[in-house]
């Protein structure tokens, strides 16, 4: 059931049922981006709480210019990145960017043989993961990513290239074991 304007007004007025409907409808998508940007499920849960608090606080400012999901999604990304910065994970972005290729070299292929795409993403550096998630999954442009992460558009492209290269390597077992798994796998990539 879509979240209509009446529900929105009720949620702004503090109607718990309306707020719960809002959360129920959008939490799977909102929480997904938080989960992908974080490499720790507990941290993701904590940040998700903050995200939803921020969404509810900001509800009165929602003007309806965009889809509610899009608006909330933007809050989720901003809040998550801010939270990650606060705990100095994104603060290491530049260092991670420089070290990313070295990390890849240190990783052995078989270490990641059984990794799913979600697990593989966790193996990316925070910066590379953020760029990959925002660009390839969330659909941000490199310019937008640059603004969000405080890097240049070129830096974003470079990070994405490295992230994808690493993911292809991390998930290569899917090709080795069965060329159809990656193509026909059901949602989450199966462990091998």
């Amino acid at each position: 059931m879509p979240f209509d304007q009446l529900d929105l007004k009720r949620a702004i007025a503090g109607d718990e049922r309306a707020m719960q409907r809002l959360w129920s409808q959008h939490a799977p998508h909102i929480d997904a981006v938080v989960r992908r940007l974080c490499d720790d499920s507990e941290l993701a849960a904590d940040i998700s709480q903050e995200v939803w608090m921020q969404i509810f606080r900001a509800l009165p400012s929602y003007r309806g210019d965009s889809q509610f999901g899009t608006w909330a999604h933007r809050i989720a990304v901003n809040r998550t990145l801010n939270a990650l910065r606060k705990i100095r994970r994104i603060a290491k972005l530049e260092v991670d960017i420089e070290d990313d290729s070295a990390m890849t070299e240190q990783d052995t292929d078989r270490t990641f043989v059984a990794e799913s795409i979600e697990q593989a993403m966790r193996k990316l550096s925070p910066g590379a993961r953020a760029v990959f998630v925002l660009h390839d999954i969330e659909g941000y442009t490199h310019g937008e990513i640059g603004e969000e992460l405080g890097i240049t558009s070129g830096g974003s492209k470079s990070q994405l290239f490295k992230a994808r290269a690493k993911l292809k390597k991390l998930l290569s077992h899917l090709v080795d074991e069965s060329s159809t798994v990656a193509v026909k796998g059901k949602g989450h990539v199966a462990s091998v």
Partner: protein
Amino acid sequence: MSHLSEEQLDHIIAQERSREQPPLNEWRTIAARAREEGLIRETQASRWWTSNRPWLQSAAAVLLMIGGIAIGRATIALPSAVQSTASNPTAAVATVGTTSTASSNQSTVSPSGNATFASVDAASAALKEAVSQYQRASEFLAVSNGSPAMRDSVAMYSARAAALDKIENATVSALQTAPHDPVINQYYLATMGARVATQQQLVQPVGLRGF
């Protein structure tokens, strides 16, 4: 070891993009924080309950009234003279004291368990008559009270009028939900009848009030 192609990786990414996952938290966790911050109006639930309590109380009053009438009709029959004058509460008051022994020959409503109707029109007519009779009985009860302590009490009629106002509001609200429901209409008519009778009692000289 061969690597994924760009297309294969894109396919996996597309699957990941569309994959839905359960929320990271339970609603009660989010709600607790929202409540702490005052984002959830603490009084919403209680306000809802409070705002609906008059309706529930009114509904309970209506049910009690109907139950009482039903029990009364099951145990003793209403005097026929009262029935004939119930539409005129003043007349009812004047005759109530002298008709208590009258036989119950006024009833036109068959026990529902034995009622059979040849058509919808017949059933509707019976229902209409039942509603009318019910209304008259309610009006009579509105001007009659068995409690000696409350006899001729302005406070009693005022309280009853106020209570009937609440019931009227509730039934009007109910009618907006189910405008053609015969039961709700019956409640409404009975309430209005009793309310009019009560109002009339309130404006009567003390000596002419019920009892």
